[in-house]
């Protein structure tokens, strides 16, 4: 997921965090699970922490919770601002807030940094209480199911009895699917965007190049690197390459074209970044290494690559057999990483399994990251799906 699909907010005299429809200043919280936690691999850790944020209020009946699931490089901060001087809001701020498509006046919205992550939740960079040293690559292999099981413990601790909905894009869509499969009676609705029930060889290949960039950087050192060091070159390259897969040819052409940077001479014979797209990607790589742990990147991309419920169950229909949730799957025409066909396949398998599922597709040129798009059409679809349920009053307007 990229950081900058949304245009910067228009200049205004009003402080941005006080803008209408924004949840305002938000604070992350930590959930500590004290007991042992066993991963799908059979490995166990002695307790874990998950960092999360919530917006809105849990209803008296505790049934208005909407769980937002983040993508590979995302985190628990999906709406609002961390301070008045915060440079930018949470990653799905355009979708979530009072009066927005995911209406925080109506829903209790929760977003949790995944297990294995590096934004406050327990992962490879966390300290192993058994040794007093960071886990690094001794951290158990994480799967999407492990992430979901850990998040369920957090939701239980909040007293949530069922999810009104679980939703996410990309890896977040996998997480949503896993919730609906693992906790069918807990999950009433799922929204899956720009996702897949099993990655293509091409998507696995891109992840593997990213992992190799990290692991072949000498500074990776079998995962043993200091907190402020590590394979910065490798992680930066992994991010630059992955970033291309989140965009589309047409979208990049519209955004950068062949434009050159102001300072770069037209005929300069140099290997320095000349084109805007070059300096943009370099900037993306650099800003990523300051906020993301290379070992976490290895773990989470592996979890994404391994996600294949059809293989585990025999077929996708069998995997979806326990699902009770109503499903909405959204594909994006220009997404070539998790293309529309793979999103259609999810909806069709749900339907073949006799479930209630809808599929909609938006024509945008933003590629995989289209799910972060500012689109009134997308907002109306999501809102319509989340807020439906009341008996529909018939009208015959054409």
């Amino acid at each position, binding site marked *: 997921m990229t950081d900058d699909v949304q245009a910067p907010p228009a200049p205004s005299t009003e402080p941005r965090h006080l803008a209408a429809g924004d949840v305002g200043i938000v604070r992350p919280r930590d959930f500590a699970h004290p007991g042992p936690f066993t991963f799908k691999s059979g490995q166990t850790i002695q307790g874990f922490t998950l960092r999360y944020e919530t917006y809105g209020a849990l209803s008296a009946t505790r049934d208005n919770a909407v769980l937002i699931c983040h993508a590979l490089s995302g985190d628990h901060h999906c709406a609002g601002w961390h301070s008045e001087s915060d440079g930018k809001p949470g990653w799905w701020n355009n979708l979530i807030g009072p009066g927005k498509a995911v209406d925080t006046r109506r829903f209790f919205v929760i977003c949790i940094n995944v297990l294995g992550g590096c934004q406050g939740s327990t992962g490879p960079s966390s300290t192993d209480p058994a040794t007093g040293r960071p886990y690094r690559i001794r951290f158990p292999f994480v799967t999407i199911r492990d992430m979901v099981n850990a998040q369920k413990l957090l939701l239980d601790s909040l007293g949530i009895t069922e999810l009104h909905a679980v939703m996410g894009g990309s890896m977040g869509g996998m997480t949503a699917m896993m919730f609906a499969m693992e906790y069918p009676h807990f999950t009433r609705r799922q929204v899956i965007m720009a996702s897949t029930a099993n990655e293509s060889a091409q998507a696995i290949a891109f992840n593997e190049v990213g992992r190799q960039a990290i692991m072949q950087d000498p500074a990776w050192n079998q995962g043993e690197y200091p907190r402020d060091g590590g394979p910065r070159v490798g992680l930066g390259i992994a991010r630059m390459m992955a970033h291309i897969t989140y965009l589309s040819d047409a979208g990049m052409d519209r955004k950068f074209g062949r434009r050159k940077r102001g300072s770069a001479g037209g005929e300069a014979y140099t290997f320095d970044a000349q084109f805007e797209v070059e300096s943009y990607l370099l900037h993306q790589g650099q800003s990523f290494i300051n906020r993301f742990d290379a070992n976490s990147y290895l773990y989470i991309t592996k979890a994404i690559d391994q996600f294949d419920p059809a293989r585990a169950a025999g077929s996708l229909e069998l995997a979806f057999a326990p699902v009770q949730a109503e499903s909405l799957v959204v594909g994006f025409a220009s997404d070539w990483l998790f293309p529309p066909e793979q999103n*259609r396949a999810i909806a069709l398998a749900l339907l*073949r399994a006799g479930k209630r*599922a*809808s*599929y*909609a597709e938006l024509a945008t040129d933003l590629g995989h990251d289209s799910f972060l798009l500012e689109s009134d059409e997308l907002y109306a*679809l999501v809102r*319509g*799906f989340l807020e439906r349920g009341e008996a529909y009053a018939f009208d*015959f307007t054409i």
Partner: protein
Amino acid sequence: MSRLVEKRTVDMQVIGEWVEPQSRVLDLGCGRGELMGYLVQAKQVSAIGVDLDFGRISACVRRGLSAYQGDMTEFMRAFPSGHFDRIICSRTVHELNEPAGVILEALRAGNKLTVGFVNHGFWKNRIGALLRGRKVRNAVYTTRWHESRPTNPLTIADFEDFCREKSIRIVRRAHLLGDWRTPCPALPNLFAGYALYDLARA
């Protein structure tokens, strides 16, 4: 209700009678889900609609229905034979690129296929075309040629010929006069304004 609105409900009345309660129904060209919504309420069917337009899918979702955005033939191919109890093709058949292919695929994926269409052999249409020498326009097809989508108008005789040729079994038919309400007593290709067929594999 205006006359046009009244005509829109004809499918609901007739198809509503034909549809078995609690059956699994697929609506090809579901639009904004009017017919599906009615069948869900009146017959407690489990329904899914297919349409090409995002806004129509979104409208279906908003009213609590399931809908799939995409090509109807490709959609049906994704299901085993007889998956649907009934497939409905209401006022869509004249807009299909390959009507025979869609109908035959629907008779594979569904146990029954209901087709409803405006009869272009209706006497008013014939006379209108003959006397005015212009594209047929009526309460349903209100637009002039240059405001219209490409359509492939058909008559009751055309449709019956097709069913005979493909050995498709006609389980039931409903021919309605120009008011789309009164049953047509005779010479349907001339006197029926609207036709509904319930089809099955031979």
